[in-house]
């Protein structure tokens, strides 16, 4: 039983019927992909291949092929890790928290956002793995596995171990949540395949839908599970980046050792996650002609979240500066002076411009509802958020306590290559998702499409 407020604009435009929804979304799975999709996939695969070469070089020759040094032990590796994890926040936030708050506008975007989350977390996870000096041992030594090494056990004091738990839990829950949401849609595709006489596709999607039949009881259970998973995911949205921030906050390095990090990181994560969702959806809606499902209204709402989180992040930056001065601690003070004025000032000011100033443009309705402006700014925000992590990690490390060890960090082509590797991985995965999976949650969107009778009454 749907209740509509006539004050609100419809979430799906174009007078779509339930049948239209199935058709518009399933046809991308059924039809040959457009040429632009092939082109994008080809580029992604080339980037992925180059990135893979760089990854293999690192694994074969050692971390030394990166530009790190005795003073700066983390740079692009952990910057990229935090950046991708941050991006991975939007999906779960949209599906879980907005589900709990009954925000129906999330329905057209949550599928893609969740897929983005999954892929972003996979990309993020590659960095802690590759950045290890001895991956071949580290990938399982970092887990508290029963072993024959005597009393050896992981160190539960280490934030890196907390990361392992936080990320793996988040990934698992997000994956399950995403997949469960896909099940009814897979069944829809299967049913359509049967009707179209494509038996192979029908069998594959049947297997993927676990033989979904759509009984009323099944639907009831389905919705209960979705609600439970949403409840489970909600604290995870907050916990993951909180724990990632503790990699820094629990250390003794000035610029890292600050209590503001957990909320500041979470806000930043949502900020960058929404920006990434926008970037992807703005492309998807054009490529797959889904303008009626992902409307300007959706874009505007997401832009509003970007203003809010961007402002939170901006306040956090200013608070950091204030506290560094107010604390009277020489090292703390210098660390922030050095960010603003030192050799890496260019990265600090890039961050400030991209993250604090640029989202304020969304106060202007014209910009907020402009596709082009939103697209540009969504990329700008993610550049800014990359710089934020770079500023925190590199500018704090490169000049810490003992001036004799102060250095400057230069990336090599392998630092860049590893980053490209994750881009290749991400876009390859996303393009495959967009082709083979329904990019919009048909089952849920159907619930907000106005029926013919309602249209008449409207």
């Amino acid at each position: 039983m749907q209740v509509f407020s006539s004050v609100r604009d419809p979430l799906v435009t174009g007078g779509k019927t339930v049948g239209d929804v199935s058709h518009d979304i399933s046809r991308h799975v059924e039809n040959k992909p457009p040429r632009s999709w092939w082109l994008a996939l080809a580029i992604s695969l080339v980037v992925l291949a180059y990135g893979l070469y760089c990854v293999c070089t690192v694994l074969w020759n050692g971390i030394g092929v990166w530009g790190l040094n005795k003073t700066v032990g983390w740079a692009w590796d952990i910057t990229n890790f935090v950046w991708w994890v941050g991006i991975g926040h939007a999906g779960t936030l949209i599906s879980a928290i907005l589900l709990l708050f009954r925000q129906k506008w999330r329905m057209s975007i949550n599928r893609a956002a969740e897929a983005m989350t999954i892929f972003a977390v996979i990309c993020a996870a590659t960095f802690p793995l590759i950045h290890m000096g001895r991956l071949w041992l580290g990938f399982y030594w970092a887990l508290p596995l029963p072993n024959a090494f005597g009393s050896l056990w992981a160190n539960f004091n280490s934030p890196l171990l907390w990361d392992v738990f936080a990320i793996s839990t988040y990934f698992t829950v997000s994956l399950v949540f995403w997949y469960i949401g896909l099940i009814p849609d897979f069944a829809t595709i299967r049913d359509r395949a049967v009707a179209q006489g494509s038996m192979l596709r029908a069998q594959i999607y049947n297997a993927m839908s676990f033989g979904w039949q759509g009984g009323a009881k099944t639907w009831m259970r389905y919705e209960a599970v979705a609600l439970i998973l949403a409840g489970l995911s909600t604290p995870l949205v907050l916990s993951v980046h909180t724990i990632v921030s503790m990699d820094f906050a629990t250390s003794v390095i000035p610029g890292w050792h600050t209590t503001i990090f957990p909320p500041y990181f979470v806000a930043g994560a949502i900020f960058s996650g929404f920006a990434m969702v926008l970037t992807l959806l703005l492309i998807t809606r054009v490529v797959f002609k889904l303008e009626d499902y992902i409307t300007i209204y959706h874009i505007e709402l997401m832009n509003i979240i970007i203003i809010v989180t961007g402002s939170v992040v901006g306040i956090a930056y200013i608070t950091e500066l204030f506290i560094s001065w107010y604390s009277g601690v020489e090292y703390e003070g210098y660390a922030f002076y050095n960010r603003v004025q030192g050799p890496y000032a260019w990265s600090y000011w890039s961050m400030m411009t991209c993250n604090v100033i640029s989202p304020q443009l969304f106060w202007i309705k014209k910009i907020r509802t402009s596709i082009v402006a939103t697209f540009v700014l969504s990329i700008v925000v993610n550049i800014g958020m990359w710089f934020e992590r770079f500023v925190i990690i590199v500018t704090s490390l490169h000049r810490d306590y003992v001036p004799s060890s102060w250095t400057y960090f230069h990336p090599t082509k392998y630092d860049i290559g590893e980053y490209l590797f994750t881009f290749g991985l991400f876009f390859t995965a996303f393009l495959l998702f967009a082709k083979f999976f329904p990019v919009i949650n048909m089952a849920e969107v159907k619930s907000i499409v106005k029926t013919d009778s309602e249209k008449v009454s409207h």
Partner: protein
Amino acid sequence: MEESKKIYWKGIEQLANHPEFVKHAHNEFAPGPEPEEDPGHSRRDFLKMMGFGMSAVALAACEAPIRKAIPYINKPVDLDPSVPNYYASTYINGGDYASIVVKTREGRPIKIDGNALSSVTQGGTSAQVEASVLSLYDNARLRGPKIGKDKISWEDLDKQVIAKLKSIAAQGGQIRIVSNTIISPSTKAAIEKFKATYPTTQVVQYDQTSAFGIVKANEESFGAAIIPSYDFSKAKVIVGVAADFIGSWVSPIEFTKQYALTREVTETKREMSRHYQFESIMSITGANADYRVQIKPSEEGAVVTQLYNLLAAKAGRPTVTGGVDKPNLGKAAEELWANRGAALVVAGSNDKAIQVIVNAINDILGSYGTTINTALPVNYRQGDDLAMANFVNELEGGKIDVVIFYNCNPVYDHPSGEKIAAALKALALSVATAYKEDETGTLTNYLAPDHHFLEAWNDAEPKPGHYSLGQPAITPIFKSRAAQESFLIWSGETNVDYFEVVKNNWKNWFYTGQTLDFQSFWDKCLYDGVFEKPTTLMATTPTFGGNVSAAASAIASNYKTSQWELVLYESGNIGNGSQANNPLLQELPDPITKATWDHYVTVSPKDASGIDFSESITKYYTITANGKTVKLPLLVQPGQTPGTIGIPVGYGRTKAGKVADNIGENVYPMVTMVNGSLSYNAVDVKFEATTETYQIAQTQTHNTYMGRETVVQETILESFKDKHWEREFQPSVATWMKDDHKAKPDELNMWKGHEYKDHHWAMSIDLNTCTGCAACVVACNVENNVSLVGREEVINRREMHWLRIDRYYSSDAPADDWAGVEVAAENPEVVFQPMLCQHCNNAPCETVCPVAATTHSTEGLNQMTYNRCIGTRYCANNCPYKVRRFNWFKYHDNKQFEVSNPAMNTDLGKMVLNPDVTVRSRGVMEKCSFCVQRIQGGKLNAKREKRKLKDGDVDTACAAACSTGAIVFGDLNNPESRISKLLKIRPQDPKHPYKMDKVADNPRAYRVIEEIGVKPNIWYLTKVRNKDSAKA
């Protein structure tokens, strides 16, 4: 209920109740069938055997890798595998000398320490000495004798050389033996024998850094052509004019030790020497001075003249013309005068005229008989510049027929090297005895390679009555032969065993008057490494007879200033270049410039127009002096006198080996003759920029300590005294728990704290007596198998040194001007701070490791388990001292590092590795372990001897190498240990004496960045400068 009569039975046997059945009825199982007739081949046995066979075959397939190790078939009597043997010996390289103790493992020398029994070097070493153990395993060494490019047997070489020598000598042909200073009496005797056989032989000695001017000046002043013994330890006021006596002047190991004694300050010894240094380039000696004054190289003579005039006026002696006034010169004169009898003035110049005036000054000050002993001359630096110049002239004139080079490489390191090289071809016979085919050796007819000093018997007499034995610590690796043996064979002796020769010489020369039998005397000498006669040579006060006014006018006419003046000097790492092929020295940062693997030209920041030198990026400059032009990258050196350019010698080797070849340029040809001796300064130098850029490999690029008083604490002597020996700066932590909201860093703790029940290892480093010489850095490298990574990786800021010496310049800006304080002052004060793992009690690295690879020991050590490390580098990031080093690459068995790290990449080089210390693999973190292998070794020894560990049983490599005793290592739980007494250690809570929290009551003791609460186990002692006020 009716009872059932039914009987249930299991079998006929039970029903029938057979007696046989009843007997076994209580057993649960019936007995099995009887074994078959042939029990040896049952099915079970077959399965067992097959199983065993298959698993045996499978196990045999898992073959362990074969390591070629050859065990002793018969164990040598004195050699236990894994137990080191120590041999006292003598380091001789050119004219440099040190009495040493060589540590060998399974017959391989792996480490050199100083020999404390020598009263000359007193257990001191230098970076050069420490590194020389790797030169033994240099791949560029000659494998055996050669004629030209071809191998030859020793017999054939001897036959040919003797035949040629005889025929040439018969015709009266001139024979010359060219050498660096020879301080070995037995070598001299061998050469005398050679001279007796071939009477036309003359020995020509020269030194890379000549002190001939001092010899000549003393000849003029006192009638004795000597270099006297100096005793800096007795001096209250020291004035050095361009004399780098800590780094390279005459006998730096000895002087460093003496100097440090005067620099110690304690509550009981409240005075320290005052040191003025007048110099053009920033030397390590100038860096240690209380007052350092910039002069131009051409002003050295004038400064000395001025000082003479100031003092002569006080002493009522005639003054001379000349002289130039410099800041603090008058003050220095006043204080010298006030401290007559406890004053010392030294000049680095090799000009006789300058040295005569210095002698006159020391004469006025009463230094002779107190701080200078002419009755005990030193035997190093006996090089005769005039004789060498004469030799070159004769050689060019074709007047010489035979040249034998011994212990020298003049084609490379003599200013006339090119002339010698050109003339060598025309000679009837030329022989080189160097252990490598160096620049000189490649041009000679014959190569008769000498042993490395660690393979050879030898002796030395650094000073009269002070003898030192050189004992081989390994059988010669290659077919080399002692050069002395060659001399004796060529002079016609047969069956020469140089060991017997040395032994006999000692019997004949030094044994007389001994009460022991000779064998015991000899054994004792071998054991001690030195034999010192009770000296009968008391210090005398010779009468000064020099002509000061003649010297002053010579100075006035010889030195004219010019826009660009050049100083050639020995750097603190490469020295004179004779060991340039040693990667330990190439990778050792120069104590001042912190440059490695690179040759450079230094100028003052004022003269480095347009080069901000950030990240060591610079431009090439061309320098022309004495007709020689070189192209070198510019290094901006704070403290250098504007208008002065400095170039270290020792680079530009062409035949030294893969490590050193083609690094930089040879600047020895820029050395000129001035006033009858070699001058290492030059005027009228052309100095021009090029557009070519370059990056110098420096280990430290940030030069100031940013006014961070918790990193470097320093004060001046007066204020230290005035404040009743309180530290000037005490860091505190803000807290709400105290009334004044301030707490001492030690008072706050988040943890309960460790308890160290047995030992509590700790270290104290005295910033006052640390001269920055870097012997400890090399000692640490050798002891702990630290990888050498090469130039590219140093540029990438990845040197692996576990122990580094931070060198900080002062800044003129106030500490809160963060931009200004980055810039070093024009004439900065310098602090050297050895920095190594601080072994924090609350170690921040330990908590962050996800796999617990770095943990705390029960003795206070912060330990690193390489096997467990997965290389996240989180520990290094979280280290406030940045002392952790990551293995970015595989540094062993990797072609990429073959040149820079031969100790892990060549079969020969690997012999130097310390078998007690793991060679770290790629991807793991490493750092200073407080030489845990030495701690364990010391504990094992004590255990075997069934006693408690004594203080001094365990010493780290760095502390052992420290000539000045600035580094002290020991057990804080032992109240009698040197470190406990030095630091005045007491437990913070007397009820828990074994708790980690200890308080050091020594007023100078502080810990770096104390306020962050990591509680390091290394204390530093505040740097105290003996100045009148903090501002210069």
